[in-house]
């Protein structure tokens, strides 16, 4: 029998116990991302700050690597969370899954420590293997790359074998293939070539395809599961739309990769391919508004978990604005020539990653806490009117929007002064960096970063306390068909 109001592992199945471990590390890494982001932001304002102790290049690297890894932990945790529920079978190879979790976590810890302790040194073959591969966003040394590939392969085995022995649903089919792609595409990130164009060509497979294709599909699967759990949406509808979304995503998204090939020395035809698919990429996103309205109008279900539902809604809006609006504003090569690699890109990156990925992982955190506390009540009339989750939701979202708009202002200055007027010259770079509008944008970014950090603290506090001592049980959403 479920123990109400306290975090009792007896309330969870084997996969969910493992998922909680992944979620815990994910939250710690999110904290690291926020901390190192604030430090890097401060170094824009005070370039001497921590110089020689914790250089900007290291802060930025840890900030971005922490993002990639906490989201990966969040997704792997979400997959383990839904695995037994979905397959109606206990996780096959759970001990191996647990072992890999500890090995991966130890590896991440070592990699971060090496980043911080060995900031300067010779760039040799052994550096690539042991210290830092030097490839932006995926700086992890080669041994860690191989570790990530092996870890994802084990998760693939857990997922495929479990579904094979249990119930093989539509979500299962998509998830199994996606885990295979998650393993396969990362292979493009474990080698290095001395030709920068060739290297960048493959590097984008990890940055665009690994993140924007395999992660997107995982998000679609998690969303499908979440909608069944929180709103009781029928499985048949959810799975049909999962197939449709995956088809639309792949139809426009895979060759949308071309917009990253504009300026890396690839043949000119990538202008056509990248431009064409990038221009059409937002159409499915916009068209899905119809589906959202249809579903909202066709059913009047009450949800069983308000914080999760609120974060799922934040996901829909964040994905639309971050990926759709902010992406399309500078995706055509005619303008991207001036904006790529400026704070424009950072502005788009922040809102898109937060909207498309962070929001849904946070939604899963709340789903997990509810079950962990014995399927407690998490709808309306929470103690204190649920102020903690509402304020953390508000602070995190407002903080992120504020940072995004601030960077947009700075990026606009860069694209005009550094790129268009000064022709990407050395002088142009500094002319833009020292322009008062750029500096003001950086100040506002830092202030909104602090707001985001406060939201994060509140989020952690809420996750640790929501549902504690609650005696009411959850009112289940309509059961799936």
């Amino acid at each position, binding site marked *: 029998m479920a123990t109400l109001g306290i975090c009792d592992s007896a309330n969870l199945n084997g996969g969910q116990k493992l998922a909680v471990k992944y979620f815990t590390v994910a939250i710690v890494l999110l904290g690291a991302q926020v901390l190192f982001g604030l430090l890097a932001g401060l170094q824009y304002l005070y370039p001497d700050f921590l110089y020689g102790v914790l250089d900007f290049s290291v802060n930025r690297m840890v900030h971005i690597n922490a993002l990639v890894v906490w989201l990966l932990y969040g997704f792997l945790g979400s997959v383990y969370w839904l695995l037994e529920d979905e397959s109606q079978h206990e996780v096959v190879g759970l001990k191996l899954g647990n072992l890999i979790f500890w090995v991966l976590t130890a590896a991440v810890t070592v990699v971060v420590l090496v980043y911080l302790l060995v900031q300067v040194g010779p760039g040799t073959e052994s550096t690539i293997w042991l210290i830092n591969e030097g490839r932006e966003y995926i700086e992890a040394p080669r041994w860690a790359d191989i570790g990530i590939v092996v870890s994802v392969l084990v998760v693939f085995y857990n997922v495929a074998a479990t579904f094979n022995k249990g119930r093989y649903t539509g979500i299962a089919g998509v998830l199994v293939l996606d885990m295979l792609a998650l393993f396969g595409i990362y292979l493009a990130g474990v080698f290095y070539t001395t030709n920068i164009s060739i290297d960048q060509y493959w590097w984008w497979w990890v940055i665009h395809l690994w993140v924007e294709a395999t992660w997107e599909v995982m998000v679609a699967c998690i969303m499908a599961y979440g909608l069944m759990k929180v709103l009781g949406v029928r499985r*048949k509808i959810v799975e049909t739309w999962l197939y449709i979304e995956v088809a639309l995503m792949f139809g426009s998204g895979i060759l949308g990769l071309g917009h990253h090939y504009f300026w890396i020395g690839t043949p000119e035809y990538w202008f056509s391919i990248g431009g064409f698919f990038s221009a059409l990429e937002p159409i499915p996103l916009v*068209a899905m508004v*119809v*589906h959202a309205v*249809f579903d909202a*109008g066709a059913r009047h279900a009450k949800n069983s978990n308000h914080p999760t539902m609120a974060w799922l809604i934040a996901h829909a809006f964040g994905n639309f604005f971050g990926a759709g609006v902010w992406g399309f*504003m500078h995706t055509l090569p005619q303008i991207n020539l*001036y904006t790529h690699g400026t704070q424009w890109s950072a502005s788009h990156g922040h809102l898109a990653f937060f909207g498309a990925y962070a929001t849904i992982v946070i939604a899963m955190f709340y789903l997990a806490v509810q079950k962990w506390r014995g399927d407690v009540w998490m709808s309306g009339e929470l103690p204190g009117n649920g102020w903690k989750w509402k304020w953390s939701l508000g602070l995190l979202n407002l903080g992120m929007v504020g940072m995004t708009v601030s960077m947009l202002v700075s990026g*606009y200055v860069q*694209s005009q002064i550094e790129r268009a007027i000064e022709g990407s010259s050395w002088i142009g770079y500094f002319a833009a960096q020292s322009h008062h509008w750029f500096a003001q944008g950086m100040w506002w970014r830092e202030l909104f970063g602090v707001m985001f950090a406060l939201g994060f603290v509140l989020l952690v506090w809420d996750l640790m306390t929501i549902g504690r001592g609650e005696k009411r049980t959850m009112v289940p959403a309509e059961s799936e068909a």
Partner: protein
Amino acid sequence: MIEPAGLADFFTIFFSSAMVILLGALYALLFAYARIRAMPVLMPLAYLSYAGLFISTLFLAQAANLLSHPLWATVVVCMLLGYLLAPHGIWHLCVGTHAADAEKDAVVEVIPESMTKEA
């Protein structure tokens, strides 16, 4: 292959690009709402949004020099057709998927009959 945008056109490009997506979403929203709530009065507003999208796309095309090359002109046409037709396509998919489900379940009883027909 590409003619880079002029400095004076930067703002036009950013603004019109954002308007393309936002008006596209507004068109889809009003289109779907008009049908699901059986409120045909909203449909002209939906197409007014699309008209705004159409104008924004032309501004974007002009500012980003898209009309000077056949390939980019084709992209503009595809965008205009895509934003116009995609909501219709998704609507048909919605009706199809939910109607099949309704045969054995009464969940979609709340959907007015009018919405399963073309407005």
